[in-house]
């Protein structure tokens, strides 16, 4: 029963995704008008327009001529905000950690489940780009990729593949830091050994082709053969590592504690990927903020933003709100949501709002969920703000992004509306506490025939309750001061 009801919306997304990938005949223009536009990269525009052509933003501003053939979406009274970016998550991976400790030949694409509820939840909370990464329980993990939370296959979802190799400085479970570091050193030593052997054999091959005899020792042969190695010659196990050391791809390096930061930076320097290093920083890592600042790279902060530490002498609990430390030093950081166990921490906007509550600049807080994560994923030219040339990824919010009462009304990805709150059945279920089975039952047998989306209003249960409550007189409190139980014992 449940599937039957949810099916149509999935089908809808599917169709949308197909439309997205289908070759477009004519230029498609969408204009989102009248809203308060928060482009993030510049000043807010009251009553601004965002014009999108063929999925790309064409213009953002106040006095924009709307082409006659543009589909106009009225956002007056609402807020237009770029789609938020969750840049480091294992969402959709059934098992985020590979058993083998070194697995650079893997790609998360093979494990992403497009029908994962997480992606649906992402849309609902205004996330339009996600950086999918291998878990932290690895030495060298899989290749990450940036996806949009729509599409029927990992391929359709992909915005950008190869966004970075996952490396962890924190020891794997049942391991320790010495072993972890030894394994990491081993990985790169093995790579250079492998490349040497490969170069040597390539040189020998070349000599054989030229009918020449080996004229130099192995050392020189390796040197001469270096340029003969082509990308295809390198095996799967080493290819991504080689691309990393060659500076073609980056690495997302997880540091669990402050002590992991220095070795991570050294590792990047020694192996030539400092320019493409992205540190994922555990809560305690703020202690290494100066080292982090010196890398001049944006960083990712894990969802737990408060570091608690008991002073071993006084016994006092010390609390540090970590983003404040980075903000003060001027380290650009991206925020992540905390996956569960909290009312608000699962939402990126809430994490940003917490930053404002703790004294951070509103601008910096908004950047931490849009522009900085875009930069982290190497997508700064495509997403993260509303400016011409970027993807038409935007949210129409009922209010300010950091307002606790705001809801995501519409989500647009590359110019297509992919989420509408009023059609969000699952949200209504969560809010109203009805299960899909119940809703389907009360819907009756003939309800599931049509392919149309079932709106929450059509389920009789809440209606019944509404009716009941309207019969009861409005609550009277205020005036009465009588306690429920002024204990008569005293």
């Amino acid at each position, binding site marked *: 029963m449940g599937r039957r009801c949810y099916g149509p919306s999935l089908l809808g997304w599917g169709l949308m995704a197909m439309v997205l990938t289908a070759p477009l005949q004519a230029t498609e223009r969408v204009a989102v008008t009248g809203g308060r536009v928060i482009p993030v990269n510049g000043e807010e525009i009251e009553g601004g327009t965002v014009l999108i052509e063929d999925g790309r933003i064409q213009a953002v501003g106040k006095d924009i001529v709307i082409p006659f053939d543009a589909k106009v979406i009225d956002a007056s009274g609402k807020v237009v905000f770029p789609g938020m970016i969750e840049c480091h998550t294992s969402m959709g991976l059934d098992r985020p950690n590979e058993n083998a400790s070194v697995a650079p030949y893997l790609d998360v694409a093979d494990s992403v489940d497009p029908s994962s509820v997480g992606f649906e939840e992402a849309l609902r909370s205004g996330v339009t780009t996600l950086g999918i990464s291998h878990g932290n329980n690895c030495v060298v993990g899989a290749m990450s990729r940036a996806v949009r939370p729509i599409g029927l296959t990992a391929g359709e979802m992909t915005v950008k593949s190869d966004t970075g190799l996952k490396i962890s400085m924190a020891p794997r479970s049942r391991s320790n830091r010495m072993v972890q570091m030894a394994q990491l050193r081993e990985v790169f030593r093995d790579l250079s050994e492998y490349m040497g052997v490969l170069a040597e054999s390539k040189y020998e091959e070349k000599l054989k082709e030229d009918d020449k005899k080996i004229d130099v020792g192995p050392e020189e042969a390796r040197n001469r053969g270096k340029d003969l190695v082509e990308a295809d010659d390198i095996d799967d196990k080493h290819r991504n590592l080689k691309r990393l050391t060659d500076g073609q791809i980056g690495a997302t390096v997880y540091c669990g504690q402050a002590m992991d930061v220095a070795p991570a930076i050294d590792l990047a320097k020694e192996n030539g990927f400092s320019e493409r290093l992205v540190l994922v920083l555990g809560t305690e890592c703020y202690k290494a903020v100066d080292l982090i600042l010196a890398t001049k790279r944006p960083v990712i902060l894990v969802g737990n933003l*408060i570091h608690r530490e008991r002073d071993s002498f006084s016994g006092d*609990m010390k609390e540090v709100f970590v983003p*404040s430390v980075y903000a003060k030093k001027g380290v650009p950081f991206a925020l992540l949501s905390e996956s*569960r*166990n*909290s*009312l*608000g*921490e*699962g939402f990126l906007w*809430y994490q940003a*709002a*917490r930053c*404002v*509550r*703790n*004294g951070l*600049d509103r601008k910096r807080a908004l950047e931490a969920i849009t522009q900085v994560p875009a930069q982290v994923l190497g997508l700064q030219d495509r997403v993260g703000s509303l400016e011409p040339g970027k993807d038409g990824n935007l949210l129409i919010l009922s209010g300010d992004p*950091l*307002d*606790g*009462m705001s809801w995501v009304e519409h989500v647009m990805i590359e110019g297509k509306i992919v989420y509408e709150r009023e059609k969000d059945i699952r949200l209504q279920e*969560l*809010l*109203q*506490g009805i*299960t899909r089975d119940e809703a389907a039952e009360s819907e009756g047998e003939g309800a599931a025939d049509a392919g149309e989306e079932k709106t929450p209003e059509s389920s009789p249960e809440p209606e019944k*309750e509404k009716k*009941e*409550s309207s019969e*009861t*007189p*409005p*609550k009277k*409190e*205020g005036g009465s*001061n*009588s*306690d*429920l*139980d*002024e*204990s*008569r*014992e*005293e």
Partner: protein
Amino acid sequence: MIEFPHRTTRGINGKKGRCFDMNKARWILFVGLLSFVVSGAAVSEETLVLRAGRVYPGDGRVIQDGAVLVQDGKIVAVGADISTPAGATEISRPDGVITAGLIDAGSTAGLMREMASGRRIDTWVEGVREVVPNTRISDVVDLLHPEFKELARNGVTTAYLTADTSSVIGAQGAVVKTNAGSERAEILKATHGIVATISADTFMRGNFNNPPWGTPMTYSRRPTTRMGLIWTMRKAFYDAMALRDGVEGPLGNPVVESDDDLRKLAKILAGDVQFRIQAKTRDDIYRAVRLSDEFGFDFVLAEATEAFRCLDVLKEKEIPVVFGPIFVNPLGYRQRSPDNPRVCLETPARMAKAGVFFALTANDLTGENSLPRQAGFAMRYGLSFDDALRSVTSAPARIIGQSKKLGRVETGYEADLVLWSGTPFQPVTFASAVVIGGKVVHEAVESK
């Protein structure tokens, strides 16, 4: 005196053993008067004025650019045209909002201890008997616990400390002020209400007395089923009735330690002591209602996750609810509970709409799940601001029997106030200043 405040008001054995000593009382009165005279000159120093862009007294009104005048721990005046007397302390925040201090009607602050290993353990779970209404939370609470400091920092000025839910009929709760001005909490009322449970918590919560091989059984814990739970509760009340009515005869093994426990239960039956029943699922809530019909006691429903499925009965029987915490995924010990109640995020809003009287609680949750966040998310999920404010101020004040003293910004009420940095319960808003009993116990340092 502070350590054992209950001894100052009544004897251990309740009315019978009340050791009210007239001589002692005269002395107290005399010393009290003396100290009043001595401190008379210092009255003006105790004067405090809080100013903010908006003041919500808690009766639905809003006072723009209002102020609250506090003298000697009491609110003396509330309004728009209040001038600051000479020598008074003034805290002003033009973009701020003043509300009454929040009240958590179901907190567990100060009741968990942290072991050296960092693991938190229950200290207030009585494992010997299932019916322990004569035990008191106030005997075990750590008033210096940092959790109280955190509560105060979050704007929670008063907390009802609820007994643990692993007993069928558990201990008596206590009402505390979260900060008495010296980084410690103060007991306002050493005993208030008795907390009972109709949920799997009785046999699943805590594991110190569970057998190492898993499921609780009769050798380790009784009851092990809902049937056993209801039986235990019934048996306790029948024994209490028998004692009350002087019935003699074979009543079988008692479920209580002593007759004093039964006398406490008789007080519940007489309506002298508040009875609070924790229940999560719809059928457990109905079970509680059935028992209340059977024995004729009133009760306050606690936790009540599935309250949205029995709004009509809660309204009809006028059962007050201490609802919460709100969650999507169960938090804390609830994750291990086999109850697994259905979640409806709109529950607070729907209770308000249906006219059910309720307060919100964060229970054992802190940080981003603390009481102001509970209220904020209740608002996100449909509750109006006025109802949200009421559900964390005047409603819990009424439930904990303090509605004439706490929960409003009104002349004559105790000066428990919060000056918020902006609209209360918003995720960007923090408690800029917290006043308890006229003393500023917390002032936020802004790090901009």
